[in-house]
């Protein structure tokens, strides 16, 4: 070893004096770290998504959606009514856990966040909503559907995504249309759901809807499994034994893949899969990995409006930034969530939480990329114009174009296929 490498660690007196003199001079000239008043200040917004844990694909795509909106606003000159103040998005990870979501939210509020956005999971949304209400800081839910989140009438909670009740109304309408148009009879339905707050809520809402509307279906099997499950063979055996016409799964990306492979291997004959509304069936990873097995799954899900120019513009940038990915329901609503906050900030002309809350309450945001009317919040903070489309994965040489809106007719990109071709008959 050479001798000059063996230097005592730390700083000697001369270096210290030199450095501090330099720092002192720089501080005196620039005024740093004193507050710089002439430049537009930053507006801190905390984004809290499940970036790690069991749902990273979705968490990451939502974080990207949040970022896409913040970058767009900053590139266009920030919040104009606040002197061009830039949005600073703090990126947080809720690990798909309620307690982590709350902790991260708390940290962001300490760091000066004026508004929170997130968090994909209904359970985590509940945890953050209670905190936001306690601290009187607005919380804009981009994605999370459970009715109970807004049912308490929190003043600070606003939800862009449709609540479970809206999902079911839309599903009922589409099911009715499919049965009439295709002249099929569906009698026996098997329902599966993941065991997290959203999965349970969505599963229960589906059962309730069938019962309340006296729909002529029999629920022959209802299976619940834990989030992040790694083996669904036993569950699919039970589904097969129940001989359903239709499978209605409330899934997540991992279990959707497991489910479809097991249905194939155990040769479960179905007329098709219609999800009452859940992720798992339209993400690029699912479409790519499952290829032909992904075809013909119908999902009643809030979706981007492929015909809106706003979508085309945002999606172009998204695809350029993240090759092989596209704006879907989650990243689309994540984008919308931050845009709604920016719109409210613009009108509030202030970062004061009370003013921002009032502005959010008066939101009428038309220029978003999703299927559905302008974002307008009711007294409980639910977006009354949020709704679901029916999307279907259809054969297309280009993987990125396989997920297509098929209902409602006015947004449809292709006619839907039902009943499907059995999984093992697809060549």
């Amino acid at each position, binding site marked *: 070893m050479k001798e000059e490498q063996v230097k005592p660690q730390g700083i000697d007196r001369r270096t210290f004096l030199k450095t501090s003199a330099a720092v002192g001079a720089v501080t005196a000239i620039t005024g740093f770290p004193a507050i710089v008043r002439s430049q537009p200040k930053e507006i801190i917004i905390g984004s809290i998504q499940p*970036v*790690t*844990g*069991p749902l*990273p*694909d979705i*968490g*990451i795509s939502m974080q990207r959606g949040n970022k896409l909106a913040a970058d767009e606003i900053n590139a266009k000159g920030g919040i104009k009514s606040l002197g061009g103040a830039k949005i600073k998005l703090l990126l947080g990870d809720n690990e798909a856990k309620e307690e982590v979501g709350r902790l991260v939210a708390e940290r962001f509020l300490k760091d000066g966040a004026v508004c929170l956005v997130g968090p994909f999971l209904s359970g985590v949304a509940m945890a953050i909503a209670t905190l936001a209400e306690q601290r009187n800081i607005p919380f804009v839910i981009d994605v999370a559907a459970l009715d109970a989140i807004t049912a308490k009438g929190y003043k600070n909670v606003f939800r862009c995504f449709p609540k479970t009740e809206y999902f079911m109304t839309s599903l009922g309408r589409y099911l009715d249309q499919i049965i009439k148009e295709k002249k099929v009879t569906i009698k026996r339905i098997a329902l599966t759901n993941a*065991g997290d707050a959203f999965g349970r809520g969505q599963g229960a809402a589906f059962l309730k809807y069938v019962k309340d509307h006296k729909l002529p279906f029999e629920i022959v099997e209802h*299976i*619940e*499994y*834990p989030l*992040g*499950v*790694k*083996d669904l*063979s*036993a*569950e699919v*055996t*039970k589904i097969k*034994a129940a001989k359903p016409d239709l499978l209605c799964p409330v899934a997540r*990306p*991992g279990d959707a*893949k*497991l489910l479809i*492979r097991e249905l*194939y*291997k*155990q*040769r479960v004959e179905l007329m098709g899969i219609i999800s009452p509304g859940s992720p798992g069936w339209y993400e690029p*990873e699912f479409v790519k*990995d499952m*290829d032909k*097995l992904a075809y013909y799954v119908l999902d009643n899900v809030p979706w981007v409006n492929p015909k809106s120019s706003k979508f085309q513009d945002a999606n172009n940038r998204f695809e350029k930034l993240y090759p092989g990915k596209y704006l879907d329901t989650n990243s689309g609503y994540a984008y919308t969530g931050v845009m709604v906050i920016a719109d409210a900030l613009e009108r509030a002309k202030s970062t004061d939480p009370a003013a921002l809350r009032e502005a959010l309450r008066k939101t009428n945001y038309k220029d978003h990329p999703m299927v559905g009317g302008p974002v307008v919040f009711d007294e409980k903070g639910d977006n009354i114009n949020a709704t679901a489309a029916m999307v279907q994965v259809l054969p297309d040489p280009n993987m990125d174009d396989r997920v297509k809106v098929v209902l409602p007719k006015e947004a449809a990109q292709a006619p839907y296929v039902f009943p499907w071709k059995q999984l093992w008959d697809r060549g």
Partner: protein
Amino acid sequence: MNSDVVLQLALQGFLMGGVYGLIALGLSLIFGVMKVINFAHGEMMVFAMFLSITLLLWGGLDPYLSLVIVAAVMFGVGYGIQRVFVNRILELPEAMQVLVLVGLGIIFENGTLMIWGGSDFSPKTSLALSSFRWGPVTVDVPRLIAFILAIVITLMVLLFLKKTNIGKSIRAAADNRYGALIIGAHINRIYGICFGIGAACVGAAGALLVPLMPAKATMGAPYTMVSFVIVILGGMGSLIGALIGGLIIGVAESLSTVFLPSSMKQVVSFTIMIVILLFKPQGLFGGKG
């Protein structure tokens, strides 16, 4: 619930149990020889799954072929871990050993996350979707292959320990460390090899699971738990116990879905563990306890 369904569930559980057994074998071997519980076991398996997936995506190598490479790499990794970390903590109190191994687990999990990201990976493999009818039941081919290979590997490890010189030294070291030292066994090398074999077993199990389930960097912890349960059931340090324990847990979890909601599956394995701890704490095949 008719008998065909029960039969189907039992078969699926039984086949999966073989793989569980192979995972637990590594844990049991390491514990039996070094009296250290490898809390990084599940995370090491996930790391091996990703190695196998990488070989599949880059080299087009089917997991059943890459299994050999993955097991060899994991052997090296295991050997290294033993010599660098585990060998230094053998004499420490158990609570301190746990810290080091849990720490290793965290490093493996986050290393996997850093290299491969957090997504679900389920690349297409040649046999992933094949199955056949056999009487009243459907047999899932990748599951069957995983079962057969798991049993073969388990038997090979058992034979290795019984017949070869190194195997005999490993057993000697397990029986009496100082005794083995006195008669001139290279105890550090033996421990390294032993940890390496344990890691290779769990690595092979990881490769076998690739056609069966989507791999995800964060899925390791439950597998550490389940192999721990199996080892307690079969008897700490008993290799044949690990295999039988794996089969029992596999069948029990699968059959439990007949009368319990699926989300309660794990309740069954932990109940079995508690019952065993209460009434036969040395496990089914454990020696003096």
